[in-house]
């Protein structure tokens, strides 16, 4: 078996999928719960498809890293979180935001750079946050969030809470030094942090084979620190939930870290500008293969219909609703005002914003 084959297991066999479906965390799902998971994945996809459309229409600036193809991971993991569980991710952050309950309106408005955006138009696509929903971003520097995830777990443990910090990263991020440093400290301090590598096979335009020295998989690097790890399919939401649930339970009950690697795939480029389709770094057939054979939404839909949890009519209704919600969010964003230029001096210093005594003492900004 070549290394490439080893890290890309064949499509999950039906038996394997059935086992995950029967895992306790999935077996207890009602038909309504299952449809809700599917609905979340559809909302993510329709939101991002709408965002692409408006990006191409010139409504947004900068980058737009879409998650399409990876939805089962954000939807599956976030569906497991409790009151004291926290999440943090990298720049491909729209789906996680919707999963934690951020509205399409605030997310789309942020992409449009509007004052009504979740970060008031100050953060953009890569920087969505909702601390009230235990969502700590949205981070633009590759692996820069991995020590922060460690810190969230440190905070959980320090406060004596039964919680976990889920820190998502891409396959490219595993080669940054601070991730290795974080793994060492996670193990050393027994912190309840779960690093979730969303391996979509390409760090920008560089394939996994060209960027990472691997034996079996990326998550296996955890072994060097005595941290348990798992390699799983990121295309089957039942598998995502079953594997993640074990890690969460371990974090809650033993305060132990874990590394999970989900095999997944993004259909679109690293960002909108990408060397993808025109004879670039991957073949069109490869993309089509994932879309046709392994799409997480298509796969789950088929399963739910087979289970009789879902009808084609219900699916169409949910999908239409997601599309309408996304379209409405674009209208909301388009009609919203831009932030004022003066607003750049807000949200820089807490003490200045609150005009506390500390915020009124001395000069903070140095414009002429």
């Amino acid at each position, binding site marked *: 078996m070549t290394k490439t084959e080893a890290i890309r297991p064949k499509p999950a066999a039906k038996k394997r999928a059935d086992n995950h479906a029967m895992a306790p965390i999935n077996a207890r799902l009602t038909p309504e719960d299952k449809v809700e998971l599917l609905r979340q994945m559809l909302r993510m996809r329709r939101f991002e498809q709408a965002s692409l459309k408006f990006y191409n229409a010139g409504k947004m600036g900068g980058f737009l890293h879409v998650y399409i193809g990876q939805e089962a991971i954000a939807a599956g993991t976030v569906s497991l979180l409790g009151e004291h569980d926290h999440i943090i991710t990298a720049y491909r952050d729209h789906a996680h935001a919707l999963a934690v309950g951020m509205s399409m309106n605030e997310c789309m408005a942020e992409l449009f750079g509007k004052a009504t955006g979740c970060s008031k138009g100050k*953060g953009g696509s890569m920087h969505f946050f909702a601390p009230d929903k235990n969502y700590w971003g949205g981070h633009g520097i590759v692996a820069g969030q*991995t020590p*922060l995830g460690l810190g969230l777990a440190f905070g959980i443990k320090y406060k004596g809470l039964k919680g976990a910090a889920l820190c998502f990263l891409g396959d490219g991020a595993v080669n940054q030094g601070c991730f290795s440093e974080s793994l060492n400290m996670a193990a050393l301090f027994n912190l309840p942090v779960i690093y979730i590598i969303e391996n979509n096979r390409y760090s920008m335009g560089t394939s996994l084979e060209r960027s990472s020295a691997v034996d079996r998989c990326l998550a296996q690097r955890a072994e060097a620190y005595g941290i348990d790890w798992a390699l799983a399919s990121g295309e089957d939401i039942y598998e995502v939930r079953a594997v993640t649930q074990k890690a969460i339970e371990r974090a809650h009950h033993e305060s132990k870290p874990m590394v999970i690697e989900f095999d997944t795939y993004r259909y679109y480029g690293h960002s909108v500008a990408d060397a993808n389709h025109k004879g670039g770094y991957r073949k069109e057939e490869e993309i089509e293969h994932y879309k046709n054979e392994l799409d997480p939404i298509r796969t789950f839909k088929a399963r739910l219909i087979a289970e009789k949890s879902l009808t084609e009519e219900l699916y169409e209704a949910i999908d239409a609703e997601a599309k309408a919600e996304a379209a409405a969010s674009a209208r909301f964003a388009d009609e919203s005002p831009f932030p004022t230029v003066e607003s750049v001096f807000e949200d820089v210093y807490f003490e200045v914003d609150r005009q506390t005594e500390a915020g009124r003492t001395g000069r903070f900004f140095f414009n002429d």
Partner: protein
Amino acid sequence: MALIEYREALNQALSEEIERDPNVVLIGEEVAQYNGAYKVTRGLWKKYGDRRVVDTPISEAAFVGMGIGASMMGLRPVIELMFWSFATVAYDQIVNNAGQIRFMSGGLINCPIVIRGPANGGTNVGATHSHTPENWMAAIPGLKVVSPSNGYDAKGLLKTAIRDNDPVMFMENTLLYGEKCEVPQEEYLIPLGKADFKRRGKDVSLIAHGRSVLIARKAAELLAAEHDIDAEVLDLRSIRPLDEEAILETVSKTHRVVLVDESKPFCGVSAQISTLIMEKAFDELDAPVRRVCSLDAPAIYSPGVEHLQLPTPDRVIQKVREIC
């Protein structure tokens, strides 16, 4: 009042804040069992234990980032860098995470973190360990930078920094750790953004921060004794926020300024102060603003030379005499 070392003043500040606020936690290399590389945290681990005083591996990016993440959760970590020079390996965490997350989240998040440690040359440890990064940090809107020149200020400023709700870069000095000064028994705080006149004078203003304040004071004594020049010494204490009022007050009084700044001259703190004076007090000046900085090259190791690369009283006197 008790006569104590600068490091002891810092130690008292840390101890008092640990006692006061259960969310204060000290994190860094050798801060616990070793009592701190420069003994600033001496005795704290023994007194407060593993939970409040945490030794880390040599992983600045991870432990600084961990502190930032924990601060987002409501803790108030005080992170020790053994040398501020090591901020280079944690620069992304400090600049992009501590410095930008409040803004990029539209004000939803704040990082009440203090990063502290020595930031100075003059100890013959070579260029990698001798950086004076107050200008690197003060150049980032979102960060605050403090640089106390004596133990009294150090204690009051550190206590304020720990209670501040923004990230504060607290820059100490290994050459000052053993300096003694009077520190009261009762609690006191010193606000950030409030400079302090360390000497009153009428002929020229010497504006400095950190150990350069000592150089300026020494120069002022010699100027008075040998040249009949009465210099005023203004200690900035914090770089950002900056006490612009005090700077303009002294410039308007003496009309002559020499800036004394151990950071490098190019884009250094003194360059910013000089611009500020030009913008706001041009008509008050009777002479061009002069600067005494570290000589603009990497810090030399040689014990016979390094002290001459830093600001010296002689260089200050020379600059003062050019304009007085």
